[in-house]
């Protein structure tokens, strides 16, 4: 304790000296915070693939494609105040999500259970190239099969996520104090969110130094979607001759049909749905920025995030090592269950993912930007992350904006990421059924990832080209390739434009 007091007293004169503010000779002139209405439009296409789908217990296709579009409009209300509107819509198609219900009839329509989404899906599975599937040739009469290695035609295969945010900021006359607030809403088929945020930014030392404090809360709610076999089991009270299971054999590890009325057949270890569907997030963000010289500046920031509620994803299956395995589909595919050769059998889940109802996250980040010369800027970013689920990670990012001409800038960049595994993570068929919490979501596993990217931006500061009353300010095109050492890889292409409303 004495040491810290000593340190504080040593540094105190420097801190106090920094607060000596020079009189501003231009204190009668107040520059507008935002001169004109600005509109930013951003679109992206994302595609990934891998072999560790969480919905199918840590194995299976992670094929996913997503198209997203965002519009951000900033409107100056007066010299001090700005209103912003931000909206995003995203449409994704996922093999993994489709396998909430992976079952279908060979050569025919899926579903012989209750009147749910299964019965309204289109006939015939045509998404993947069936190398071994035997078609009965008759609609709806083939055996019920499934596989974690390709997409089913389930309704959960595709979904739309939409969000909107309204923001307001007010700057003091001297522009040394900025207050902001925002309200957000988002929704997708299994999740809705309402968010609020407040923030204050304080500049001093002739605006060379900046402190920021921001608080956010999100009140989110799951609309839980469960693996079809677990959902059906709970709905029918454990009767394996009703609903989806009517007329379907449940096979043991040797491919022999089990007696579904006996104890020697499949059943999940829990038989209840989620009670508390809330998922709330509270965060406090601190930031500090400092201009170090005419060419160098640094910022350091941290978030303290507390999450409470149902933090697991009920879509994600878990399989236990200490429980026998049971399947629906072709017995001949069981030996190949964990690879792509399996195109006809699906293992019934032992449970869905369960995680603690609270999580504390503390990331620390820093940016250091150096203006090398009029052509090149060197940008670095580092983050250390730690949470009480035992995940610790490092993120390191470099970007080198290069002005190749008056109007064009290139943005080569590289990002490295690594993390330790969450203490509740284990691979497919590695969990023990006596555990309270478990996940086979490889997003929470131990891995490292590299991301390489390149971007190009065109800027016309005079906005000579017009679209109606809006001057075209810039466009940008960015490509990034992401690769994990667990096998997941992804491509993302983004295209953005900016317009400014002429006065």
């Amino acid at each position, binding site marked *: 304790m004495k040491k810290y007091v000593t340190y504080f007293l040593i540094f105190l004169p420097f*801190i106090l000296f920094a607060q000596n503010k020079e009189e501003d000779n231009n204190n009668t002139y107040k520059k507008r915070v935002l001169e004109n209405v600005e509109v930013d439009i951003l679109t992206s296409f994302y595609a990934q693939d891998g072999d560790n789908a969480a919905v199918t217990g840590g194995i299976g296709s992670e094929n996913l494609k997503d198209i997203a579009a965002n519009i951000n409009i900033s409107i100056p209300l007066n010299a001090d105040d700005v209103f912003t509107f931000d909206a995003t819509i995203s449409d994704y198609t996922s093999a993994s999500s489709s396998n909430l219900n992976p079952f279908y009839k060979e050569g025919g329509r899926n579903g012989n259970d209750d009147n749910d989404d299964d019965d309204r899906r289109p006939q015939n599975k045509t998404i993947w190239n069936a190398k071994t599937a035997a078609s009965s040739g008759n609609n709806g009469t083939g055996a019920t099969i499934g596989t974690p290695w390709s997409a089913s035609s389930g309704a959960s295969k595709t979904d739309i996520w939409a969000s909107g945010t309204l923001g307001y900021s007010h700057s003091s006359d001297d522009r040394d104090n900025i207050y902001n607030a925002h309200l*957000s809403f988002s929704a997708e088929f299994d999740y809705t969110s309402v968010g609020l945020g407040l923030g204050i930014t304080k500049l001093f*030392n002739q605006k060379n130094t900046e402190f920021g404090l921001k608080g956010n809360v999100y009140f989110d709610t799951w609309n839980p979607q469960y693996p079809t076999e677990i959902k059906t089991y709970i709905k029918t009270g454990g009767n394996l001759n009703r609903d989806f299971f009517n007329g379907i054999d449940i096979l043991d590890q040797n491919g022999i049909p089990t007696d579904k009325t006996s104890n020697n057949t499949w059943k999940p270890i829990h038989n209840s749905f989620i009670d508390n569907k809330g998922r709330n997030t509270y965060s406090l963000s601190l930031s500090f920025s400092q201009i*170090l010289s*005419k060419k160098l*500046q640094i910022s350091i920031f941290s978030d303290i*995030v507390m999450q409470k509620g149902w933090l697991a994803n009920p879509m994600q299956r878990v399989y236990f090592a200490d429980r026998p395995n049971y399947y629906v589909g072709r017995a001949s595919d069981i030996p190949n269950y964990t690879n792509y050769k399996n195109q006809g059998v699906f293992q019934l889940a032992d449970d869905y993912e369960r995680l603690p109802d609270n999580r504390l996250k503390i990331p620390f980040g820093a940016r250091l930007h150096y203006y090398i010369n009029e052509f090149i800027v060197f940008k670095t970013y580092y983050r250390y992350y730690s949470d009480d689920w035992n995940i610790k990670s490092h993120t390191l990012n470099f970007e080198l*904006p290069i002005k190749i001409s008056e109007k064009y800038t290139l943005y080569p960049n590289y990002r490295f990421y690594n993390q330790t595994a969450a203490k509740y993570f284990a691979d497919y068929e590695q969990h023990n059924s006596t555990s309270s919490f478990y996940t086979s979501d490889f997003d929470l596993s131990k891995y490292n990832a590299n991301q390489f990217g390149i971007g190009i931006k065109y800027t016309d500061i005079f906005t000579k080209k017009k679209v109606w009353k809006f001057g075209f300010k810039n466009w940008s095109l960015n490509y990034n390739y992401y690769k994990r050492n667990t096998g997941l890889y992804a491509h993302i292409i983004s295209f953005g434009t900016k317009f400014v409303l002429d006065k």
Partner: protein
Amino acid sequence: MKHKIIITSLLLLASLSSCVAVKEYEKVNINDPDMSLTSRKETKFETTFQVYREGASGANGGKSGGGCGCN
């Protein structure tokens, strides 16, 4: 040990505010758009997919876990 490093670093950083007072007319380079101490707007969707695919989040201007069924 970690606490000592963090507290010492915070004190050092706070004292950095005394080191430099670059005048407004000297901030031509600092005010370059590429020198902004935030991630580029064009990387918004990259940050989003990283939040979904990685266990870590926050301290980057993106989501920190709320507002989505992500990590």
